[in-house]
């Protein structure tokens, strides 16, 4: 019996210590159980499925991708702990998630030279002077909002300025694009009629909407997430508000269509990727991976984020060892990289980590999100970083 245990122990040691195939370890910080888990789960699924796809294709330059995932529940302290654990496990890159944790880790990843592709699209993360190892694959929050204003300005036919209202949560995420919106609205000659706060967890927005209705805006920017957006849209329908609402990237998705029902019809959602079922090469891959089960739009961005990072790693392997600085430098060589059509082409530069200036405008209906425009802005230097 004792000999049996001994043999088993030796076998296990040999098995675990035998040199296996080289693996590219990537840390994934996900919110699967915290306050943003409703969008965090599909995004994390997108990353995971992309890694599966890459491994089925033989990995990246012959090396398999190994994802080390931690559910940090949108808690900064847990994100830092998870990051340190990842570092001990030998990750070469990180797929991050929210604004609070991505920002808390900016200095850590710069110090440890770990390239990070996050789902926080704060404009200041695009400045390599302050965030040299941070990347993301969507136009930043400010650019998204500016693109919407540009689109409505270009398509305005009446002989009067457009009246704009702003509804956003008094929260770092909600406040981030507001200065950019105000400045660009002024440049385009919009009339800013009013602004108000609707919290991320608010169950009623009637009083704010009644005040806003009196100001008769043509368009109202909604800067919350889907639950607060659903409340706003339903309450606006209840009071018969005529304005068109523009929701930002975390404020509309397929779930919002269910939550808001008919109240969603005709309003606009800003996104930076195609929706499930779009006629692009990447969709066939996704359909195959998911067995034809429809996926959330955030899933598609998660997939594209991992796919773009994999391309940077592939370029890095061609130039030598897979290290953090090599992946960062390789990311900066990407020029109009097309993640199988899932997002607009992506380019990063040494002094500018803005992936692109393209935003998709969708019109929302209770049964679909219909692409109405692909708005592209010029890469203006004065917009850089904010």
């Amino acid at each position: 019996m004792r000999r049996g245990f001994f043999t088993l122990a030796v076998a296990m040691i040999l098995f675990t210590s035998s040199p296996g195939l080289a693996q590219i370890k990537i840390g994934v910080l996900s919110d699967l159980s915290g306050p943003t888990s409703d969008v965090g789960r599909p995004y994390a699924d997108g990353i995971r499925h992309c890694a599966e796809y890459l491994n089925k294709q033989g990995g990246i330059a012959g090396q398999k991708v190994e994802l080390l995932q931690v559910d940090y529940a949108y808690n900064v302290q847990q994100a830092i702990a998870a990051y340190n654990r990842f570092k001990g496990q030998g990750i070469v890159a990180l797929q991050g998630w929210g604004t609070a944790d991505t920002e808390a880790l900016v200095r850590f990843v710069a110090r440890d030279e770990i390239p990070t592709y996050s789902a926080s699209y704060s404009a200041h993360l695009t400045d390599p002077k302050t965030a040299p190892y941070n990347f993301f694959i969507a136009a930043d929050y400010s650019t998204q909002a500016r693109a919407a204003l540009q689109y409505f300005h270009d398509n305005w036919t009446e002989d009067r300025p457009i009246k704009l209202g702003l509804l956003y949560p008094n929260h770092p995420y909600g406040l981030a694009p507001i200065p950019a919106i105000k400045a660009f609205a002024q440049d385009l000659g919009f009339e800013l009629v009013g602004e108000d706060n609707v919290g991320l967890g608010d169950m009623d927005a009637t009083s704010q909407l009644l005040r806003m209705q009196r100001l008769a805006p043509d368009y109202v920017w909604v800067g919350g997430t889907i639950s607060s957006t659903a409340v706003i849209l339903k309450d606006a329908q209840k009071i018969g508000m005529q304005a068109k609402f523009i929701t930002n990237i975390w404020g509309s998705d397929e779930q919002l269509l269910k939550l808001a029902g008919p109240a969603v019809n005709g309003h606009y959602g800003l996104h930076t990727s195609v929706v499930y079922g779009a006629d692009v090469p990447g969709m066939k891959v996704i359909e195959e991976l998911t067995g034809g089960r429809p996926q959330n739009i955030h899933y598609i961005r998660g997939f594209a984020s991992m796919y773009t990072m994999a391309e940077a790693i592939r370029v890095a392997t061609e130039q030598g060892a897979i290290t953090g600085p090599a992946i960062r430098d390789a990311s900066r060589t990407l020029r109009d990289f097309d993640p199988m059509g899932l997002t607009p082409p992506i380019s990063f530069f040494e002094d500018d980590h803005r992936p692109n200036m393209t935003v998709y405008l969708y019109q929302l209906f209770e049964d679909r999100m219909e692409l109405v425009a692909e708005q592209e802005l010029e890469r203006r230097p004065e917009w850089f970083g904010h």
Partner: protein
Amino acid sequence: MRGKCGLFHTSYASETRFFQTGFQKLSLGVFLALLLCSPFFLSNYQVSMLNMINIAVIGAVALNLLTGCCGQISLGHGAFIGVGAYTTGICTLAGWPFFAALLFGGLVTAVVGMLFGIPSLRLKGIYLAIATLAAQLILSYVFLHWESVTGGSIGMGLDAPVILGMSLDNDAKMFYLTFGVAAASVLLVANILRTRHGRAFVAIRDFHQSAESVGVNLFAYKLQAFAVSSFLAGIAGGLWAHYTMYITPEQFDIMLSIQYLAMIIIGGLGSVLGSIFGAVFVTLLPEFLGTLAQWAGSFFPNISMYFLALREGIFGLILVLFLIFEPEGLAHRWRLIKAYWKLYPFAH
């Protein structure tokens, strides 16, 4: 006393000594020596956990002095930690030496804490909790909207602390700083509790009218409790800011205040040792549950997903179970364990 069975005190001074026996001194010395050597044999991840525990210990011991010892419930502790973080950060960015910035951060937080402690003369219990909740909301608003000072929603980037020309730019170096400050904070609070002030705090907590009738100036002592507690919270915030090197208003929200309340409830209200236990427990529990989820996931992938979703619930459940079965916290359990081994193998 050597050679006698049990402890015999012949003076109040001997009764209030920290260490009643030589064994206590020896075991604590060995423990501290091991802790000081730990960066040499622990992984970077484990040392980073120790850093977070050290910072949590400072915050928890501060809140325990105010809430556990003086009976003043505070739901604004997270914001006070934020005040310290921002003040220290602003000072170091202005070129102040780290320790000067840290101390100034603590002092500014003490002043802010005293300001919000003023209502404590008229309010107590749940009413004071709401008043301190207001402090949390007001300060969160200031962090977010005073952009020229705090950076607003963008936040504030900082550098690692520099002490005597040495940059504490890794977890191992940072450990000695956080550990030193945590040890000093624990010693400070433990000593305060042995003084006239500490006894006044406890008297106020137990029954404020009795305390007043024996000459305790309620307002002065309550403000003192707020000041000392906020000072230490500010120190914890300053360390946190320079440990993470990037602070945003989201890091100091109401959830942080609740987390610190959970620490002192789980650890044991009114106990310095309990604060340490609570800080360790609350910091390590999510890591333990995460590891458990990963381990379960390697056998049953689907179960792991359900487990992850349950994780926050499990945390809440543990809190409730503590309140029901161990309301005096881990410190009480530790006393029982010590008593058990003292009498072992004789139960009575």
